[in-house]
């Protein structure tokens, strides 16, 4: 299946995937290839990632100057954002002022704290934290007290967040503008896939020299997989698959004989076979991940034959950016299918239909929400 897919995959997709798989070959790209690649990488939010790889390989001087300048610019931007989020974490710890709230740092900032290979040049603007449900009020009130504010939200959004989502409305300090997303679970409480956050919290590991935690390596990969294939709509989300694959290779390299087995066991224990299956499958299909197909065969839960075929067709069209000058209708359709799927997974139908109707209404009449926004 993978081979025949390769032949029909659009040229611009190949260009981006080759660049990710073989950054050393970038020195041979001609100007035309560079121009398209830069546009695609920007859409996929991977320009900082590519720049970091080229910088590390000492290759920024060996590519066309205009490309190097743009990549260098992205890298500077990414470093600044990383510094800002890092400082936000520092301020959150300060705001908690010694209160016993174990903070588990998620996603981009966690990758940065561990200096994982995908962290270099990674573009992210938010600080994501996981706390227990009991600590939620404590951290929210501590931050509000120290000057953070909720975005102006409509009552509808407020209710969406608090009752149906897995995080409270984002908190932002007006002087710094970095979003702090505080989660108490790792997926929507209404979703079909119930994820108990307790085992994740119990297995979290302390960051060396700091009073904060990150998920353990297996859980970090599973969380990445859940976000990709459970929580998100997958459109232009290739970078999260790149995260998954980079981390997978890195942890395998660090624990060569045991990591893959630990990952499968953990996925089976937490019943997260489906998202892990897709992450492994598409890492291999799109990013030429060297992991063996035997790996996902050991999963207790795997998607069924029909789902696999639909996903095989739709996911690459959604994950990979559209050609900037020749958008394809197939990709639009695939993205719609996955958009509906993600909502279907997150909410039961009786909630989903009114929600999507409301979102559609807002897209036609922006600013005419049922309630006026207010700052809390």
């Amino acid at each position, binding site marked *: 299946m993978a081979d025949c897919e390769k032949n029909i995959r659009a040229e611009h997709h190949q260009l981006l995937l080759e660049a990710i798989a073989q950054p050393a070959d970038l020195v041979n790209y001609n100007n035309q290839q560079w*121009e398209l690649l830069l546009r695609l990488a920007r*859409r996929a939010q991977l320009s900082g990632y590519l720049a970091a790889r080229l910088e590390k390989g000492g290759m920024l001087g060996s590519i066309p100057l205009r490309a190097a300048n743009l990549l260098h*610019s992205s890298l*500077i931007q990414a470093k*600044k954002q990383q510094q800002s989020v890092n400082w936000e974490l520092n301020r959150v710890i300060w705001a908690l002022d010694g209160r016993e709230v174990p903070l588990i740092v998620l996603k981009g900032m966690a990758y940065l704290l561990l200096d994982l290979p995908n962290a270099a040049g990674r573009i992210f603007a938010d600080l994501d934290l996981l706390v227990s449900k009991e600590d939620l009020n404590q951290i929210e009130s501590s931050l509000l007290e120290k000057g953070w504010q909720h975005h102006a939200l409509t009552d509808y959004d407020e209710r969406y967040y608090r009752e149906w989502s897995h995080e409270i409305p984002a908190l932002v300090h007006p002087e710094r503008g970095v979003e702090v997303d505080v989660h108490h679970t790792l997926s929507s409480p209404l979703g079909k896939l119930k994820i108990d956050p307790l085992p994740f919290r119990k297995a979290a590991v302390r960051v060396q020299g700091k009073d904060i935690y990150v998920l353990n390596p297996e859980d970090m990969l599973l969380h990445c997989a859940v976000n990709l294939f459970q929580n998100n709509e997958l459109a232009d989300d290739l970078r999260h698959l790149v995260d998954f694959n980079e981390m997978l290779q890195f942890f395998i390299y660090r624990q060569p004989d045991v990591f893959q087995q630990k990952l499968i066991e953990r996925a089976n224990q937490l019943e997260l076979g489906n998202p892990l299956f897709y992450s492994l499958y598409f890492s291999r299909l799109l990013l030429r991940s060297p992991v063996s197909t035997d790996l996902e065969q050991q999963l207790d839960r795997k998607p069924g034959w029909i789902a696999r075929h639909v996903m095989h067709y739709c996911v690459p069209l959604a994950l990979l950016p559209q050609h*900037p*000058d020749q958008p394809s209708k197939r990709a639009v359709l695939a993205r719609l299918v996955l958009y509906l799927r993600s909502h279907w997974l997150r909410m039961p139908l009786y909630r989903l239909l009114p929600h999507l109707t409301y979102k559609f209404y807002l897209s036609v009449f922006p600013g005419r929400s049922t309630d006026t926004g207010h700052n809390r």
Partner: protein
Amino acid sequence: MKVAQLSLNELRALLVGPGLRVKAGPFNLSIRTRLPSLIRQLHSLYSRYSLVEEDEIVEFHVQVIPRRSVRRPFARLIQFEVDGRFPFPPVPLEQALATLEWGVNLVIAARINHFLLFHSAAVERNGHVLLLPAWPGSGKTTLSAMLMYHGYRLFSDEFGLMEPQSGEFYPLPRLMPLKNQSIEVVRNRLPEAMLGPEIPGTLKGTVVHICPTQASIEQSDETARPRWIVFPKWSAGAAVRLEPLPQSEAFLLLATNAFNYEVLGKTAFNAVTNLVRGCECRKLVYSDFDEALAVLNALTDG
């Protein structure tokens, strides 16, 4: 090859099809649009610009596209698009040119970090750059438009592009939006200037674009080093004054006004420090352009 060498039909074919690839200082720009009015405006106002040489990389790909609004079904609206994103809400068709120009500036400000981007006009005389940083109500666009016709080469009315390591400034001579009262001033004082259509009702009021002189555009590859920093302030009825400005104050005004000072961090701090130390810093208050020109000439004569 210059845009002027294209017939209207040839230009239209590019704008509607693969994009008009045109040089803008150190950057290359690709513009696409189907709007007949905008195509005609670009045919005259972009005539002095050079086309990008074949096989060169273009950094920014922008489009101006017609929009329909469910709420205003009969309004003719347009929107600026860059790489699938729409940074501004739709605006009436008449504002297409102004939206295109502001859009391109926004993209430069948002994406470029290999230069330190001062929010400043910049002109060159006697081989050195005179920076005219933004100061609220300074009228830097009007001043740089006037200077451009009085012996100064225009770098930009909006961006001081500085290469932070070398301290070299790069010209970016783009169309300059004259606003409100300054339109009449320029019409009267510079009858030879190439002006665009009057665009009423923009966020900044009525706007008319002035095209940089042919010489400013042709020499846009020639960089220069800065020597003078003058903070201009137009004040009705004021007698002309050119006063020294402490370096510390110049530093703060420049740094807080730069688009990407914070993003560049330490690099920017060092660059602004060196810039201010190497320049003569002044504050200019004026009401009459001829008086301002005389004191600026005296400053930049040596």
